[in-house]
């Protein structure tokens, strides 16, 4: 643990330092992820928040070496002390599914449409853990029960299209946890689902990490999702970390103008009647990244310095990390914000 109690070194399940992902676009080479750092502790839920284009999905894919051809990574990704970037194929396969598992955004497209559920749920268990067919089936039933799929025995003989969206996501989660990985990476786990179903999935993730001690990294653009279950939040903008700290701090008393803008633009329960104020402008595309702080064109408090100098991540008194050079912090952000953790 570091001085401020944050997971680091061997205490951390995942430690990412200065990770960058460079892509070759139609306009040349661009860094979609530009030097981000964060860590996840044992049994912890970390939320990675950002809009589309902020590099969050690429971050998730880079952990498992699933980036598209032509992408280059740099920096360090340590899983339980072991460096993941640059691993050979064979070694990566050891990690994938067995120690770090991925749950993709849309279960309609991430579960194989033509294969039976039991095949999909047991193939990696048998490959990684060497289970026999029967034992793997038992494990599958156990996992399906854990995610509250009714009648797991029959479910095994069905195909994904016979289930609803929420059920499919539960199955995907069960599939991901079948080998008992230490880290679960969930990429937009609720985005493709109805609002009424989202809560159930989130509760499920929370319960699973409590019962099994698995760490979870949730990637989403939906702050509401994160406010309800994540312990800490890392906010990305333009491929860099904007703000990074424990959830009540970051969402309750945001210090980065972007986070502040996000919170202001959400409907809130306690300040009924308060206007929702969207942030002016739109997020930058890879080809048109502004100089200096990527957020400055949309920031009320931008100074001359913001236009030219990229702000470094600094540590504040309360332990959070902040990448903003506006100092002193404007009064507008000093007061209590309307959002709390439920």
């Amino acid at each position, binding site marked *: 643990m570091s001085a401020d109690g944050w997971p680091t070194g061997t205490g951390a399940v995942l430690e990412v330092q200065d990770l960058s992902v460079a892509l070759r676009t139609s306009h040349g080479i661009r860094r979609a992820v530009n030097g981000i750092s964060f860590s996840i502790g044992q049994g912890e839920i970390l939320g990675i928040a950002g809009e589309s284009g902020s590099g969050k999905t690429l971050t998730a894919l880079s952990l*498992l070496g*699933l980036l598209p051809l032509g992408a280059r990574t740099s920096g360090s990704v340590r899983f339980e002390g072991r460096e993941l970037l640059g691993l050979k*194929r064979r070694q*990566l*396969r*050891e*990690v*994938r*599914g*067995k120690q770090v*598992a*991925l749950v*993709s*955004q*849309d279960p309609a*497209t*991430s*579960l*194989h*449409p*033509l*294969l039976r559920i039991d*095949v999909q749920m047991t*193939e*990696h268990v048998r*490959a*990684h853990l060497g289970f026999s067919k029967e034992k793997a089936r038992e494990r599958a039933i156990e996992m399906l029960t854990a995610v509250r799929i*009714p009648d797991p025995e*029959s479910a095994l*003989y*069905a*195909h994904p*299209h*016979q*289930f*609803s969206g929420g*059920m499919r996501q539960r199955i*995907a989660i069960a*599939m991901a946890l079948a080998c008992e990985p230490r880290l679960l990476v969930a990429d937009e786990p609720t985005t493709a689902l109805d609002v009424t179903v989202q809560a159930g999935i989130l509760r499920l993730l929370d319960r699973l990490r409590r019962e099994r001690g698995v760490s979870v990294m949730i990637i989403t653009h939906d702050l509401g999702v994160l406010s309800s279950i994540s312990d800490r939040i890392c906010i990305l903008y333009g491929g860099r970390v904007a703000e990074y700290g424990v959830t009540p701090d970051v969402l309750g008393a945001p210090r980065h103008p972007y986070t502040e803008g996000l919170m202001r633009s959400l409907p809130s329960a306690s300040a009924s009647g308060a206007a929702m104020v969207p942030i002016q402008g739109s997020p930058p595309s890879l080809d048109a990244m502004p100089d200096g702080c990527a957020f400055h064109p949309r920031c009320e408090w931008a100074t001359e310095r913001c236009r030219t100098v990229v702000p470094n991540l600094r540590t504040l008194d309360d332990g959070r990390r902040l990448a903003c050079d506006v100092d002193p912090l404007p009064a507008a952000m000093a007061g209590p914000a309307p959002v709390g953790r439920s």
Partner: protein
Amino acid sequence: MNRRSARRVTPAGLGRFLARRLGIGAVLVVGITLVAFILTHLVPADPATANLGQSALGDPAIVKAFYHEYGLDKPVPEQYLIYLWKLLHGNLGISEQSHRAVATDLSQYVPATIELALFAIVVSIVIGVGLGVLAAVRRGHPVDSGLRVVSLLGVSMPTFWVALFVFYIFFFRLGWLPSGGRLSPGLSAPAKITGLYTVDALLHGQWSLFVNALEHLVLPGMVLGIFTVGTVTRFTRASVLEVINLDYVRAARAKGLSEWTVIRRHVMRPALLPIATVASLAFGSLLSGTVLVENIFSWPGIGEYAYLSAINLDLPAIMGVSIVVAIIYIVTNLLVDLLYSVLDPRIELR
């Protein structure tokens, strides 16, 4: 919870499907008989001139008797109805060339073509799928580009020319393979069970006969298959490429499965689904190819029969061939659809 019945193919569903498809098929066949009938009666050439000798033509009584025998003196619509009636009784008329029932002729010629076509399809699918997967997995490498050119070559070659070329090299120059026919002269066909010499020989345990029949199949089969190999390769490549970057394939990789397992279990099945479509298209081009290939290799099949009938303006034979070919086509399409529903659990037969 939202769960449908796990059984997607119910007896009732299957029955409805078959009934519907056969119904459509029947309508199609009737349409074909109509077209065949119209075509053959638009023929400017007079069948009498084609079939009677010079002196007979000069005698009006003989010509009249000819017309009467073939029912050509009745009004056309009535001729058609008579024809349909006979059809339903399995009577396809008498061929003017062989003077036997067309149905008898066809029962000999059809199995020959089926044997040839099956050989060609099996060979070309095996080779084509293998090459297509290779090209897809090695996308962008010289292997891929090379295979692309090769498959384009395959679909560009004139069948009759390739047949001649192959004939020239393997028979004329090298003498490795026989020149034509289904069996070497002097050998008699195995007792008929399916009509496919190879299968029948095997079923009777006549090993050397089997080998001989197989030898005769190789050249025409390969020539027939060239066009199809090209098509199947390109199609497989495109299909595999479409699947290989889909979310669920990436999810399979994320589970830590070996690339080989991913391709074999997760990619191949969805990629090969459309192959069934290709196979039915390929079948069409195969039947076309038989006309040329059978001609060159003296293979007694319906392609050759169609050609001879057309040249000799043998009306009953032409109509018979057209109908049989169309029926084969319809049945093949039906089988392909059934195959699809078996392979893809998402499809319900309707």
